[in-house]
Structures are given as C-alpha cells and as structure tokens.
C-alpha cells in the first residue's frame, strides 16, 4: 500500500472533525506527518488499528503529541493515532487510592480531579506535565521520585490496549496486589506504543504529603557533586535529589543540587535540617508547598522543545563518571545536564552544533558504548529523524523483545522506538 493513499483508508472511519491532514496535521505534531486521527472510544481505536493493519498503513500511537517535535518519532509513520479524546475519568474511589481513566486524560485535569481529596499520582518523568496519562504509561520513563514512590511500571495497575494486530486486551486490574497470571501490564507499560495503543489506564494513587519542600544547594561542580554524594549515601528518607549543570561544557561551572523532602510536618522539618547538617552547610534557599511543586513540575518539562535529548543510566555511585559521558554529548551540542542523583540517571539536551549530524551521531554511539561497557545504558528520548535512525533509540532489544513485538504487532503496523 502506498503512503499516498494509506491515511485515506483510515480517515473514512472517523468524522472529518476528528481528522487532521496536511499542514494542520504537521502543525499539531510539530513535525511533518500526513494525518492525525482522534478516535473517541475504544471501538473506534480498534477499527483504526485493524484498518491500518489490513492496508499496511504504519501508525504512530500518541497522546497529546507533546513529544513529537524533533521528527524522529514521526519519521516512518503514515499517520498518528492520538488518544487525546479518550479523556474521561471512568472510576475514581478516593479511599481505594486507585483511578481508572481514558488514556487521553491530561495531566493537569488529572491533578484537578485528585486535588480535592488530597491525593496525587507521583510520577515525574520527562514530559508528564504536558502529556496524557496514557502517554506516561506508554513511555514508562520514571523521574527522580522513583526512589520514593516507585516508577511508572510500579504504579500502573491495569491497562486496556488495542494490540498492533487489532486485538483488544484488558490486562491487570484496579487492585494494588494482583498475581493472577503473567504480568502483561509491565510488558505494555513502557513499550512506547510498539505493541499496542493504550486506551484505558488504571493507576495507584498516593496521599499528598503535608509538606513538599525543596532545598537548593548551589556552587561549583565539585562541591555540588560532593553534596550529591552525601545525600545519596544518607539513610534519611529524601524523596528525590536532582543535580543541574549549565552550561555543561564548563568543567567547574555553576551547578545546583535540589533536594526534595516530602512528609508530615515534623518529619519533613527534621529531615531538612539533618540533610543540611550532613552536607555541612545550609541550603542557598528552600522553597515549600506550591512553589516546591512548581519547581519540579517545570523540571518535568525541562527537555522542552529540544531536538536532542539523551538519557544515560548507570549505577548511582558512578554518577560522576556518567556525567562525564553526558558532557561528551553536551560538549559539541552546547547542551545542559540534569542528573537524578538517587537513580543514577543523567539527562542531557542540546542542539547539534554547526549542523554536523555525522559528528553528533558518532559522539552518541561512542557514549552509548562507553556506558554499556560500564554496565549502563544510553537511550535517545528525542532526536531528529535522521539521527534517530542512525543511532537507534535504544541499544537494541534482543531476541525475546523481537519475538514479543512479533507476537502483538506482527506486520508491523505500529511505529516507535521499541524494541
């Protein structure tokens, strides 16, 4: 089936008001794409995937489309299927601390639904604030709060998915402990839309802590790294710690460590003062409540519209070495670095300098090899089409991953960065 007619085979399934084509489609995605389709329920989603499967149309599942700008993700897709209209809250019982919603439920509305009950979904991976619940589940990328609350994969309890070959699966449930059969929820969470289109999500919620406080320690790279080491090895229940460096090219340039403390009033005050004692100095500033939350919400959008974002993960005690590798990426791209101190994860973003695409690809490949040699990984989160194709989103999935892909999306119909 040729690319020219394929999206047409899909558009006929939805009213025109829920189909974008041409310039409007590209504008919505932020990068070139022929069509964006917005199914309004599970049945329409299934019909679209089946039609795509029958006609050989390649689709990219998406949520709000907030992460498509650099072009790498949309590169090989004939059309995008966005679940943004599947945005209803389907089941929310506050005392159960669980919620089931359509995949398209936006993060802000989710927050508004939970707030009156003093609850939240403490997922703070890159991009969650601008995206959808389904998008967060599909990407499965945790943020620094993973150390306290677990990551995306620990808090998604159930999913409804349309697989690449058009089957409808309801997996998991809405109870917090469930071992009835194999854990397909963990397989689909974080599969980046490569196995199916997620249409509904059940998640575990948490009570919002009484105090949300963030202490910011600023200084030279050496001093801030040392403060980060103290926090990492402390037995104090710090909820998250992030280290920001800008500009990354400067070896002993200004850096900042943000230590987030969550808990009851006495507990949080106690932990804050003891962290300062252990580090050996008072924080430059401490923000609390909404201000602290805002600071972290902004961090989830840190990647912004950057055309290149890489994620380096290694053992936490190798953070300094991982940051050296991140500098290799940041150097030629004049980028910035953000490190999750407790998780050992370093994010780096930047613009390829002087348009030397081959040079950037070479650097990224070398960095990936370096990370892998030390038992770590490097993943591309965002990249222009050409670069993504050259370097690869991940270091490769292996035979089992390929077989699982073939099981749920044999044709393949779904385009994405996995495996």
């Amino acid at each position, binding site marked *: 089936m040729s690319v020219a007619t394929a999206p047409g085979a899909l558009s006929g399934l939805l009213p025109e008001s829920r189909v974008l084509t041409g310039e409007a489609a590209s504008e919505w995605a932020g990068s070139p794409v022929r069509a964006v389709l917005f199914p309004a329920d599970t049945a329409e989603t299934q019909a679209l995937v089946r039609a795509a499967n029958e006609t050989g149309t390649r689709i990219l599942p998406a949520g709000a489309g907030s992460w498509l700008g650099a072009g790498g993700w949309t590169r090989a897709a004939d059309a995008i299927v966005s679940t943004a209209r599947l945005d209803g809250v389907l089941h929310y*019982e*506050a*005392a*159960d*601390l669980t919620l089931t919603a359509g995949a398209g439920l936006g993060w802000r509305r989710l927050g508004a639904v939970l707030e009156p009950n003093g609850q939240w979904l403490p997922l703070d991976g890159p991009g969650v604030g601008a995206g959808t619940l389904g998008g967060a589940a599909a990407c499965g*990328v*945790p943020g620094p709060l*993973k150390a306290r609350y677990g990551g995306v*994969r*620990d808090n998604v309890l159930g999913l409804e998915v349309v*697989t690449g070959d058009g*089957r409808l*699966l309801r997996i998991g*449930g809405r*109870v*917090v*402990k*469930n*071992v*009835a*059969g*194999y*854990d*397909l929820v*963990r*397989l689909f969470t*974080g599969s980046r839309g490569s196995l199916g289109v997620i249409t509904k999500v059940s998640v575990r919620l948490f*009570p*919002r802590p009484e105090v949300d406080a963030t202490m910011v320690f600023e200084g030279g790279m050496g001093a801030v790294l040392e403060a980060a080491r103290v926090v990492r*090895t402390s*037995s*104090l*229940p710090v909820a998250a710690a992030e280290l920001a460096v800008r500009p990354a090219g400067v070896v002993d340039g200004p850096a900042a460590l943000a230590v987030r403390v969550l*808990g*009851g*009033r006495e*507990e949080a*005050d*106690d*932990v804050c003062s003891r962290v300062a004692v252990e580090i050996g100095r008072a924080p430059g500033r401490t923000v609390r409540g909404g201000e602290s939350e805002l600071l972290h919400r902004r961090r989830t959008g840190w990647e912004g519209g950057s055309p290149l974002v890489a994620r380096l*993960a290694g*053992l*936490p*005690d190798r953070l300094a070495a991982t940051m050296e590798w991140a500098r290799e990426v940041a150097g030629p791209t004049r980028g910035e670095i953000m490190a999750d101190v407790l*998780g*050992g*994860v370093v994010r780096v973003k930047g613009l390829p300098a002087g348009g030397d695409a081959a040079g950037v690809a070479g650097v990224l490949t070398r960095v990936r090899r370096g990370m892998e040699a030390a038992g*770590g*990984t490097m993943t591309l989160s965002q990249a222009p089409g050409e670069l993504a194709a050259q370097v690869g*989103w*991940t*270091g490769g999935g*292996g035979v*089992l*991953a390929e077989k*699982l892909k073939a*099981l*749920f999306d044999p044709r393949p119909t779904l385009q994405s960065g*996995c*495996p």
Partner: protein
Amino acid sequence: MIPATLAKSLVEICGRDGVILDEDRLLVYESDALTAYRHRPGAVVLPRTTAEVRDAVTAIARHGLPVVPRGAGTGLSGGAVALDRAVVVGTARMNRIIEIDAANRRAVLQPGVINAELSAAARPHGLHYAPDPSSQTTCTIGGNVAENSGGPHCLKYGVTSRYVTGLTVVLSDGSVATLGGGGREAPGYDLVGLFVGSEGCFGIATEIEVGLVPLPEGVRTLLGIFDRIEDAGRAVSDIVSAGLLPAAMEIIDGPTIRAVEDSVFAAGYPTDAEAALVIEFDGVEAGLDREAGRAAILCERAGAREVRSARDEEERLALWKGRKKAFGAMGRIAPDLLVQDATVPRTALPSILRGISEIGERYGLVVANVFHAGDGNLHPNILFDRRDEAELERVERASKEIMQLCVDAGGTITGEHGVGLDKKHHMPLIHGPAELDAMWGVRRVFDPAGAMNPGKVLPEETAGGWSAERDGVGAGGPAVAFGAAR
C-alpha cells in the same frame, strides 16, 4: 523414574549428591505447602551454578521431559508440583549471596538464598530487603521472584517486582538470557517485570539482582480491638482516606483470635473481640508519634473498644504475635485448612467481610480471616476435616462463592500466592479468551516447547472454550485444596 542415560548425564553435571532418584527421597518433593496436590517427580536435580542449571535443563530437554523449578517449596498454589513425572530443578544448593553493593543499595544473589537471610546480611550496612512474605524465614528469593511475593509491609514498600532489577535466566532450551541488571532502569521492554511472577513457566532465574532499602529509624505499632469486623475494615479505609500511609495494616478476626488465644501462641488479645487491627508506622523518629496518634483516634472513631500501643520492641513483637502465629494456631482447631488469597478494592472490605461470614454461616463452616487489610488482600481460611465428605463438598461450594464475591466487587482471584495448579481453573473468572490467549503467546515466546512447568497457571484451550476443569488432584484425592498450617 527417568531414563538411565539422563540420570547418568545429570550426575555428571551436578555430582552424585546433586541428583535424587530414590523413590522414598522423592516423596519429600511431591507437594508444596498446599498439600492437596501430590505428584512425585521423576527426579530431582540440585545444581550449584548457572552453568549447571543450563547443562541440566539442556540434558532434560534432550530427553523431552518437562522441568519444574523449585525453591523451598513453601508456595500455596501447587506451583512447584511436578506433574507427569517431570524433573524438579531445585535451587537449594544455589544459596550464595554474590554481592552486597551497599553504595548502590543492591544485592546480587543466587535464587536459593532465604528471604530473611538476605535482610540479615544487609543489616550491617543499615539496609534490608523490603518484601516480607509470612514464610520469610524459609522461603527463597528465587521463589519470591517466581510468585511476585508480597507480605505485610508491602502496603508501604511494594511487592517483589518493585525490587528486582536484574535476572539471569535459563530457558527451557538451555539458553541463558540476561535481563536488566546493573541496578538500572531497563530501556526497551520490561522483561524483568514480565518474568517476575511467571511462576516458573518462563524459565529458571539463576542469578537475581535486587534493590535494598535503608532500615527505618523508628517504628510505632498499634493494636486496635473491635467488637465488629466491619468497623475494623472501616478504620482501615478511614486511615488511608486521612492521608496516612502505614507500613502495614493487618486484620485478625474473632475466630482467629480465639484460635490463637487457645494455643501456645496466646498473645493476650481479648477473646470476646471480633477483630484485631495491627497498624505499624515506620520512618524517621520525628512525627511518628503524631501519625500513630492520628491512627489511634481514627480507630476509636470507627468503633474500636481499645487501642494498645507498643512501648518497646518486646511489646511490639507481642502485638504482632497474634498475626504471625495465626496459621499455626488454626492448625490446632481443625485438621485441614483452605487458604484463599483474593484481593478486593479496600473500600469493599466491610461488605466483603460480611458476605464471607454469611457464606460461612450458610454452609455451617468456620471461616477465619487473617489478612493484609491495607492492600485489600484477603486470606479467608475455611477450617474443616477432609475425612468428612459432606463437609468437603460444602467447603468447595463456599470457597467458590467467596471467590466469586471478591471478583464481583472488582477484585482478583490471587494477590500474592499465585495461580499454580490451584486457581488455574478460576482464571476464566477474571480473564477473557483474548487475554488468556495473549498470556499463552507470551509464555511460548519464552518456552516454545512447553517444557517449563507445564500444566500450571493457564487453563488449556478446549473446543468449548477455556477449560474450567480442576486438574492435578490425585485420584481419590479431595476436590479442594488445603494449605499446611503455617
């Protein structure tokens, strides 16, 4: 009995003391802690390393025999039972902690390491392994990985799958795969998460990397005494709704209290009470008293007649005693015990508890409840005597009704014990044909030959749909499952 050539190969691989062929000694391996299912394996092999597991599995595969992985045999779903004289690959001799990497709060170990021994080894570093199944002094981490085990403190800390970060696994064709590892988040599919809880059907984990957590600085333990079990259930919901997150919340009901108090395990619970609720908070010292105080008030408001609080470790252990010894005590009042494991939404607890008690009354059976209330994970125990055939039949019917009641409330058939042989025929209660088919597909990705723990977890597809027939119970055996007192 297995072919002599295979026996010879296995002895060559694992040594003479690593292969059990003697029929009398094989008896030890005929069941797990759910003793209704008894099947003697064809042989038991006890490898010491990944290479030995690989070679043993390869040799067994060459003879076309199935493989059943086994840890300590403390499972409660018949998952480690060897059907069709399969060869059991036991991990008893793979009990080495390879590394405790305190700096990165992780440990690498062999699958036969006992759960509590891992925590003991981590303790000098100020760390522990969080998932704490009730059998933690005997169960193995490999078994925990296979079952995705829980435990009382999983309310705050989460279950096994949250802590497993890497696995080396041997698949049924003898190939070795490395999943995740290095403490890192795995890019690509979460194959580690998929493997955890696969009940020995995907392969044998031969090396396991887990995350450790710091020991809490302080602990506060409360015991609420209630005249009505629904009130205890409501207290649990109220505590959660108030934004408190205890480390554990466990309910022990009236029949269980009386069983405990009549036994050598007497914990000083009032015998006229209908429920005892154990609540534990942990964390930094600051603020713990206020949290415990708030929980105590909520218990009183929900109708607790008394709330006790432990002043020291000795008193804390006393408050926990009734919970920890409940299964042992029940073994004294009835010869047989059926343990269920459904999980329901927390808010459904009061109505479900009432429903279970009504079902028990209707069938003239004693149902004792002791369970992880904070997670909504119930363990109704039906007490009976298997020699009474009429009672047996009532037990079977009551058991089915209880399970259906939990499923209808939005729950699931097993929260932590696994499906194994015991609940396989209940799988169609909560999974449709498409979901069961998808699970079969995933299983075949790992085990195309169908040689790894066959006959477990998934019902077979038959011409008339998915089989709901119970199987695996030996001829003449009872049609119900009953757990060993523990």
